[in-house]
Structure formats: structure tokens, C-alpha cells
């Protein structure tokens, strides 16, 4: 597939430099085609952006956004003085960090391993199996974990039968970070190899042959050809992960929050949900959400700068 930059010569391209009325007439069906998507995005993405003003109000569902009282920065003052909020922030950062360390290397390692397998039948089999859990819902994935590792699950059954005692991973706050990371690994690590496999396939085979002719063994080739070939993708994935540091998966925590307690399992998204919607304190929840969005934008910006410092494109260039 060719890439799509604007500069690509294309004989179906429309001649530029015409009066906009003429161009609109000519392209009216193209513009019309984009309309449904644009309308949906405006209604469900752009209108809520203006809805963020509720964070500066004392929102009253009966009065609506237009007639609620303004509260200035009161909600934020309340937020920053709330130990439960800081609990959610520190949980988010901690879980995000543990997940990054444990999860990130696995898809890369798996992709390298798979790439070294000669038989395409084995490769295809492994790929179609490890991609599968990505398509499971979180409810399903957590149910599976519960059945395998929970108090009444397969693992504890085995332990009890052998008189080793029980070990309920699902409700233990101390091991919660490991639990959620292993859930993410089980569900997403297989899917994560796709980008790396694509990058591996794009490495020029001649390089390996030339290196081998020069006497480089398999580990040297891995170090000097394969890993540099993956560098761009690895940096891109890291940028995305850092930019999303405040998002650790929402449904995953929503479902398990009660089992381990909110001290350990409340993250920013669930905080915003419980205070905003479950208790009806909309403005407070919106303030927490806005705080998260602003920090996330800064993180994306920072992570991208970092990528540029390493000489990579990262997510965007300005």
C-alpha cells in the first residue's frame, strides 16, 4: 500500500486554485458523504467540549447548563483538598507505571520470537490464538480470571486439594497491581505484537545477509539490525503509552473496584464516574475529568517532545 501524503501525484486529484464555489459544486457529493460522521462527531464530541463549563458551575440537572449557578474554581478547590481524589491520582499513576514496566516488553519479545519461527503454519496458529482475547469484553476477561484465580476458582481448588492453603488473588489489595497487569497482558499482549511484526517484516533482508557474511552471529544481528529497525515503532508506542498515563482502563477497574476496595482500585476515571454520576455531583465529576484531560494533553505534548529529542517522529510534528 502506498502512503497518503498530500504531495503524492494522483491523476484523479482535483485541480487546485479554483473559486471555492466551483470546487464545492464539483465536490458536493464528497462533502455530503462526510456529513453523517461530522454531525455525529459534532454532537457527541464537540458539544460535550462546551459541556465542560459545568466544571465551573454548581450544575443542577433541572436548571441545565444555561441556568446553573456559576461556581468559579470552587469545584477545583474542593477537588485539590479531597484526599480521595489524590488517592485516585496516585493509584492511577502507580498502576500505569507497573503496567508499563510489566506489559511493554512482552509484545516486543513475542514478536521477535514469532518472527524467528520458520514454519508459517506455526506462526499463523500462534497469531490467531493470541489475538483472540483482544476481542473479549472486560466483563468476560475478568470473569475468566475470577473463575481461574478467584476464591472458588480453579487455582485455589488445586491448592486446597493439595493442602497448600488458599490464595485469593481477586480480592487482595496488595497484589492488585500485579493482577490488573496480568489481565492486561493476557488480553492485549498478543494483539500488541501486530505492529511489531509489521515493522519486522519491513526490515530489509539483505541487511541480515550482509551482516552474516561479515561474521555477525544471530545475537549481533538482533542487536544491530532488528532492534534499530524496531526503534521507530517502539518510540511511537511509548509516546502513546506515556500520553495515556492517566488512562489505565476503565471498565476493568469499574468491575473490580468493589472486590478490592476503592483505596487500591479507584482510578481517575472511576472517581469521576462515581462522584459525577452515581452520586449526582455532576460538576465535581466534570472537574475531575477536566483535570485529567488537561494533564493528558500536556503528557502527550511532553512525550512527543521527548520522541523528537531521540530523533524520532513520535506522534506528530509541528
Amino acid at each position: 500500500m502506498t502512503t497518503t501524503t498530500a504531495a503524492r501525484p494522483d491523476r484523479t486529484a482535483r485541480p487546485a486554485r479554483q473559486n471555492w464555489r466551483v470546487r464545492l459544486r464539483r465536490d458536493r457529493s464528497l462533502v455530503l458523504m462526510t456529513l453523517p460522521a461530522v454531525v455525529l462527531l459534532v454532537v457527541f464530541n464537540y458539544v460535550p467540549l462546551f459541556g465542560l463549563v459545568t466544571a465551573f458551575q454548581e450544575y443542577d440537572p433541572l436548571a441545565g447548563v444555561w441556568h446553573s449557578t456559576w461556581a468559579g474554581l470552587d469545584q477545583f478547590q474542593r477537588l485539590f483538598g479531597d484526599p480521595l481524589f489524590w488517592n485516585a491520582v496516585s493509584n492511577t499513576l502507580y498502576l500505569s507505571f507497573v503496567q508499563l514496566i510489566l506489559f511493554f516488553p512482552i509484545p516486543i519479545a513475542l514478536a521477535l520470537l514469532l518472527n524467528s519461527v520458520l514454519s508459517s503454519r506455526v506462526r499463523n496458529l500462534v497469531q490467531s490464538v493470541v489475538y483472540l482475547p483482544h476481542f473479549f469484553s472486560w466483563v468476560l476477561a475478568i470473569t475468566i480470571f475470577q473463575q481461574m484465580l478467584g476464591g472458588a476458582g480453579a487455582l485455589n481448588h488445586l491448592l486446597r486439594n493439595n493442602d497448600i492453603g488458599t490464595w485469593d488473588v481477586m480480592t487482595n489489595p496488595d497484589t492488585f497491581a500485579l493482577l490488573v497487569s496480568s489481565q492486561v497482558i493476557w488480553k492485549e499482549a498478543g494483539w500488541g505484537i501486530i505492529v511489531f511484526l509489521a515493522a519486522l517484516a519491513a526490515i530489509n533482508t539483505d541487511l541480515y545477509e550482509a551482516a552474516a557474511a561479515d561474521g555477525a552471529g544471530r545475537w549481533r544481528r538482533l542487536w544491530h539490525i532488528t532492534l534499530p529497525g524496531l526503534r521507530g515503532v517502539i518510540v511511537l508506542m511509548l509516546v502513546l503509552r506515556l500520553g495515556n498515563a492517566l488512562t489505565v482502563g476503565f471498565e476493568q477497574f469499574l468491575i473490580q473496584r468493589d472486590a478490592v476496595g476503592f483505596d487500591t482500585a479507584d482510578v481517575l476515571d472511576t472517581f469521576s464516574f462515581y462522584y459525577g454520576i452515581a452520586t449526582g455531583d455532576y460538576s465535581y465529576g466534570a472537574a475531575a475529568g477536566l483535570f485529567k484531560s488537561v494533564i493528558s494533553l500536556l503528557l502527550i505534548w511532553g512525550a512527543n517532545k521527548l520522541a523528537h529529542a531521540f530523533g524520532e517522529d513520535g506522534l506528530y510534528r509541528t
Partner: protein
Amino acid sequence: MTDTLTVVERAIADTSKPVVPRRRRGHRPAWEEPPTVAGETAKGITLGVVLLVVLVPLWIIVITSLSTQGAVNRAGGLVLWPDGLTLEAYRVMLQDTTVRTALLVSLGITAVGTVVSMAVSVMCAYGLSRSRSFAHRFLLILLIVTMFVNGGLIPTFLVVTGLGGYGQWWALILPSAVSVFNILILRSFYSSTSADLIEAARIDGAGDWRILWSIVLPTSRAVTAVMALFYGVSYWNSFFNVMLYLPTDSEKWPLQYVLYTYVNRGNGMPGSVNSGFGTAVSQTAPLSLQMAVVVLTLVPLLIVYPFVQKHFRTGVLTGAIKG
């Protein structure tokens, strides 16, 4: 901002290049060292473990769902090895009105949602794929901005409820009907549809609708299938939106939410003593019944997956970038 766009697109296009097999099957290039026994064994064991970690839980769940009460009792819980099989759990499950309704609701939402999403996305992707068309830069930026900035949970909830979406099925579909990421992938494929073909069709008098329908869509079946799977799975799995917009209407719940209340929370399984919703009462083990509900949420995926997953290998893919 316009450069932003090209980098995001290039990242997508890079990963959507066809994955050309580096070597022919079973052929080790002459320059490569012969494999060591230890190395091959380690590889084999690692891959075997990876496969088992995914497959064993699924196996246990399927077998337990098919087990008789006696087998479950003998095993003292989950059944690892077939020991008295029966379809009783499935019979009881499908007699339960909550599960039956939920199955229909899930299938309906998935079907309608996928059709809506695909129609909207395919049109939008094609509409933006002809270079230098009217306002296409502006529209693209409008789309891409939503990948980085959004109102977040509460404002979106207020907008949807403000439009009367509370308690309505459309609240599970329309707010998440458009995935900008999917549109960008489709667009990058459509942009690379042979310019000759399109030119020829245009000379023959075909308009853009005709070109989209008769040329672009038929030449990009693989990516269309994969996108339909992505959308379909996201509707089939929708859970949080149910909690937001339909938390109390149990007769409107899709399957995932029933799985959550029945199995995850252990509330009122049909057939258990304090059955809250169930209409069927039976002697079947609640555990095999629970596992049958789990299997039921898996089945449609397992039916569709084999037809689509081959396209992941032949290069349509992408998706993981979403992170």
C-alpha cells in the same frame, strides 16, 4: 497541524503495509546458522505455554458449561476433563427470559450499530480520500482533533441524556458510532485504490457515489471486513454505556450486562434459589449455568473470527496503535 496529520497517517499506513513473509515456508536462508537444539526447545516451550495460557481457561469454561451436576460435584467446582456431558445448562439458560431477551438485544444492537458505523465511516473515509477536494483538510483536522481532545465522561453523559437518550438503546449506538481511527485506516486504503481504475470510471461518467460503491468497496474487501469486525466487537462488548444509560431496565440489557450481574456479581441466576429474574427453575448446577452464559457471549465472536482473522496476517492491520 497539517503536518500532525501526515505523521499520524504515516504511522497508520506504515503498519498497514502488507506483511510480506520474509522467507519461504520452511526455508532457512543459506547464510543463517543451523538451529541449536536448546534454542529450538526453548522456543517451542515458550510458544506452547503462551498458547496454553489463552486456551486452557476457555477449555475449562466450555467443558464446565457442558457438565452434569454430578460431574461438577465430583470435580468440586470447575471441570477440567469431560466426565458426564449434558446440554442441560444451555436448555435452562435459553428458557430464561432475561438471557433470551439479552441475546436478542445484543444481536440487534450489534447488527444495527455495525451497519450504521460502517455506512457512516465508509462514506466519510471515501469523502476525504480524494486529494485536494473541497475542505478536506479542514474536515480531516476536525476529525483528528477528537482523537486528542474530548469532553469526557460527565459532559458526554449530560449531552446524551439531554437528547433523551436515557433508557434508550440508541444511547448504546450513536455516541460511539464513529471511530476516527477506523476512518483514517479506511481512508488510507481508499487513497491507494488504483487511480487508473477511478479515472477510467470517471471518463465513463461514474459519479463519486458510483465509484465508491462499484470500485472502491469491491477492491478493499479485506479492510472492510476487518473494520466491520472492530465495530461489531465494540457493540457486542458494550458494557459501560449500559451501566450509564440503562442501569435499571433489566429487560433492555444486552448480554454482557447480564453476564456481569449473573456471573460476576452472582445475582439471581436463573435456577438458583433466590432467582431475581429467572423464570426457569431447575436442578442444573448454577456453575455450569454460569459458564453457559460465558460461552454464549463468546459464541458469535468465535463464529465470525476465523473468517476475519486471516486478514490480520495478510496486512490489513493496524489497530494496536490505538493503545
